[in-house]
C-alpha cells in the first residue's frame, strides 16, 4: 500500500465537498440499482415508484412528513448528546419511556381538557425520557462508565417492560384476548394542521430552538467545549458532571417527546413496536448531519422519503419491505464510506517512491 499516500485534508472547498457527497449518492444509487436488478426488479421503476410514493400526491407527502417528524425530534435529542461526545444510542428506550409516561397520563386522566391533558402528557414524556437518559449520564459523570453499552441495554429494558405491560397489567380487557393497551380518549390525541398532526410545527420550532441553544447560549457553548475536550472544560472551571447530566436530560427529554407524539398522534395508544427503530435511525441521521441542527432537518426529510418510498413499493409493486431495508443500508454504506474522502486526501505517488529508492 506504499504507493498510496493518505493525508488529512485541512480545508476542503465547499464546492468539492458537495461534489463528493453527490457523487457518493449517485454511486450508491447505481449500486443499489444493480442489487435491485439482481433481485429481479427493474431499478428505474423501483426508484421512480419510491419517489412517487413519497412525494407524488398530497396524501403521500403527508405520510412522508409523518415519518420525518419523529426522526427530526429524536435526531435533535441525539445531537445534544453527540455534541458532548456522549454516545447516546438509547433513543429507542427514551422514546419508549416517554410514550409510557404519556400513556399513563392519557389513560389516568382521559377527561381533562385537551390542551391541559396534552401538555401534561408532553411534560411527563420529557421527564420520563430525560430520566432514562439521566441514569447513564449520572454514572458516566460520576464514575466514567461506558455510556454506549449502558444506553443500548436501557433500550431493551424499556421495550421489554412495555411488552410486559401490553401483555400483562395494562392489557385492554375489552379487546377479546388481543394483547393491546386501551386506546386514548380523543382529548389525548394531538390536533392536526394541514392534514398532519401538529408535531411538524413542534419539530420545526425545536430545530430553531436547538440551533439557538447550541450556538448562542452559554450552556450550549459549554456542551460543545466538553465535547471538544474534557480537559479544556475542566481547565476553564466548568462543572463537567453537571453539564453532562443537563445535556443528557435534554437529549432524553427530546426523545421522550417523540414517544409522546407517536403514542398520541400515530398509535393512539402504547405498543411495544412504537419506537419503530426511530431511535437507531436518528443516530445515523444525526451523524450524517455532522451534528448540525439545520442539516438534521434536511437529512431527516431525505430519510423520510426513503422510508415512505420503501413502504409504498410494498403496496404498489409487491416488493417486500426487506428490499427497502437493503436499499436503505446500501445507500448508507456508500454515504458512510464517502465521509472518508471528505476528510482525507488520497494521492498516488509512484514517483516519490522511486526517488526514495
Amino acid at each position, binding site marked *: 500500500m506504499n504507493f498510496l499516500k*493518505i*493525508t*488529512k485534508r485541512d480545508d476542503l472547498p465547499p464546492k468539492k465537498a458537495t461534489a463528493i457527497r453527490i457523487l457518493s449518492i449517485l454511486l450508491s444509487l447505481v449500486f443499489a440499482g444493480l442489487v435491485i436488478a439482481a*433481485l429481479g426488479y427493474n431499478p428505474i421503476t423501483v426508484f421512480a415508484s419510491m419517489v412517487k410514493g413519497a412525494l407524488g400526491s398530497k396524501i403521500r407527502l403527508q405520510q412522508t412528513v409523518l415519518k420525518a417528524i419523529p426522526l427530526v425530534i429524536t435526531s435533535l435529542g441525539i445531537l445534544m448528546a453527540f455534541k458532548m461526545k456522549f*454516545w447516546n*444510542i438509547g433513543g429507542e428506550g427514551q422514546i419508549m419511556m416517554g410514550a409510557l409516561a404519556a400513556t399513563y397520563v392519557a389513560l389516568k386522566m382521559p377527561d381533562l381538557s385537551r390542551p391541559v391533558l396534552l401538555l401534561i402528557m408532553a411534560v411527563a414524556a420529557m421527564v420520563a425520557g430525560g430520566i432514562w437518559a439521566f441514569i447513564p449520564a449520572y*454514572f458516566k459523570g460520576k*464514575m*466514567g*462508565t*461506558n455510556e*454506549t*453499552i*449502558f444506553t*443500548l*441495554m*436501557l433500550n*431493551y*429494558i424499556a421495550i*421489554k*417492560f412495555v*411488552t*410486559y405491560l401490553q*401483555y*400483562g397489567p395494562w392489557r385492554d380487557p375489552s379487546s377479546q384476548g388481543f394483547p393491546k393497551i386501551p386506546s386514548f380518549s380523543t382529548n389525548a390525541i394531538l390536533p392536526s394542521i394541514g392534514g398532519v398532526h401538529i408535531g411538524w410545527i413542534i419539530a420545526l420550532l425545536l430545530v430553531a430552538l436547538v440551533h439557538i441553544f447550541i450556538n448562542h447560549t452559554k450552556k450550549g457553548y459549554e456542551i460543545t467545549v466538553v465535547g471538544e475536550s474534557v480537559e479544556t472544560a475542566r481547565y476553564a472551571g466548568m462543572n463537567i458532571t453537571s453539564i453532562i447530566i443537563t445535556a443528557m436530560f435534554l437529549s432524553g427529554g427530546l426523545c421522550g417527546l417523540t414517544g409522546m407524539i407517536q403514542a398520541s398522534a400515530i398509535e393512539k395508544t402504547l405498543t411495544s413496536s412504537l419506537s419503530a427503530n426511530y431511535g*437507531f435511525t436518528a*443516530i*445515523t441521521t444525526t*451523524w450524517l448531519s455532522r451534528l448540525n441542527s439545520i442539516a438534521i432537518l434536511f437529512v431527516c426529510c431525505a430519510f423520510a422519503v426513503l422510508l415512505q418510498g420503501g413502504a409504498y413499493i410494498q403496496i404498489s409493486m409487491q416488493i*417486500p*419491505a*426487506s*428490499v*427497502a*431495508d*437493503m436499499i*436503505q*443500508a*446500501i445507500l*448508507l*454504506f456508500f454515504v*458512510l*464510506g464517502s*465521509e*472518508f474522502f471528505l*476528510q*482525507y486526501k488520497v494521492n498516488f505517488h509512484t514517483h516519490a517512491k522511486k526517488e526514495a529508492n
Partner: protein
Amino acid sequence: MEGYFAAAIIAGTPLLFATLGELITEKAGHLNLGVEGLMMMGAIIGFIVGLRSQNPALAIVGALAAGSIGSALYGFLTVTLRANHVVTGLTLTVFGQGFASFLGQNVMGSVIPASIKQFFAPKPIPLLSDIPFLGPIFFRQDILVYCGYLMVVLVTLYLYKTRLGLNLRAVGENAAAADASGINVTAYRYVHIIIGGALCGLGGAYMSLITVPVWQENVIAGRGWIAVALVIFASWNPIKALIGAFLFGGLNILGFRLQSMGIHISQYLIDMLPYATTIIIVIISTRKNKKEDMAPGDLSNPYFREER
C-alpha cells in the same frame, strides 16, 4: 432439573458463538453493533444451503462465509475508510435483517431435512456423559455445543498464550504503540473482524439449523444484542463468556419453564434480566477499575498513522 440445564446450554450456544465473535472483534479495537445482522445472515445462508444440499458441513461453511462477508464489509468501512463504528454496525444490522428476510420468503416454513437433523442430534460423549448430574447437562449435546466448548479453549489459548494473541491485544489496547512495535494494525483488525463475523454467522445458523429447525421471520429475535451485552458481562474474557452465555440462555427459557411449574412470572420481565445484569456489571467493573476487566483501551477509536 437436569433437563432445564441441558436446555439452557442449547439456548446459550448461539449466544456463545456470537459473544466469542464480538469479543475477538472488540479485542481488535472494533465495536461491531452489526452482530444481530450478521447472525441473521448466517442463519438464512446456513438454512438455505442446508435445505438445498442436505449437507450439514456445507450449511456450516455457508453460515461462516455469510458472517465473514458481512463483517468484511464492516471492516472495509471502519478500518480502511474509518467510518464511525456505531453507525456502520447499526447499518449492517439493518442490511442483515433485510437480507435474511428477503431470502427467507421463499423458504418460509420449510423444515430442515432429516439428514441434517440427524447429524445435529445429541451425541453423548462416552464416559463423560455418565458423570452424574453434569454428564447429562454438558456431555449429551449436539456436535456444535462441543465445538462451542472447544472454541472457548482455543480462543483463551490464542489470546493469552500465543504471540499473535498478544499482538492482537496490543492492537486493541493501544494501536499506535502496536504499530510502533512493528505490528500490522490494519491486517490484525481485518482478520479478527472477519473471524469474529464468521462466528456470529455460526451462532445465527445454530438458531436456524438446530434450535428452531424451521425458517421463520426474525429467527434471531434480539440475541445479537444480548451477545453485545455478554461481551461486557464477561469483561472480555472467553471463559466468563461461556458462563454468561449459558446463564443468559437459561434466563431465555426460564419464564416458560416456571409457567409449566405453575409459577406465573411474565417471560417479558425475565427478558429484562440479561440487560439489567449487564448494566450492573458495567457499573461494578468501572468501580473496581481493574485493568483486566476493562474494555480494550482503543475500542472504537479509529487509528490513522498520520494522525498520531
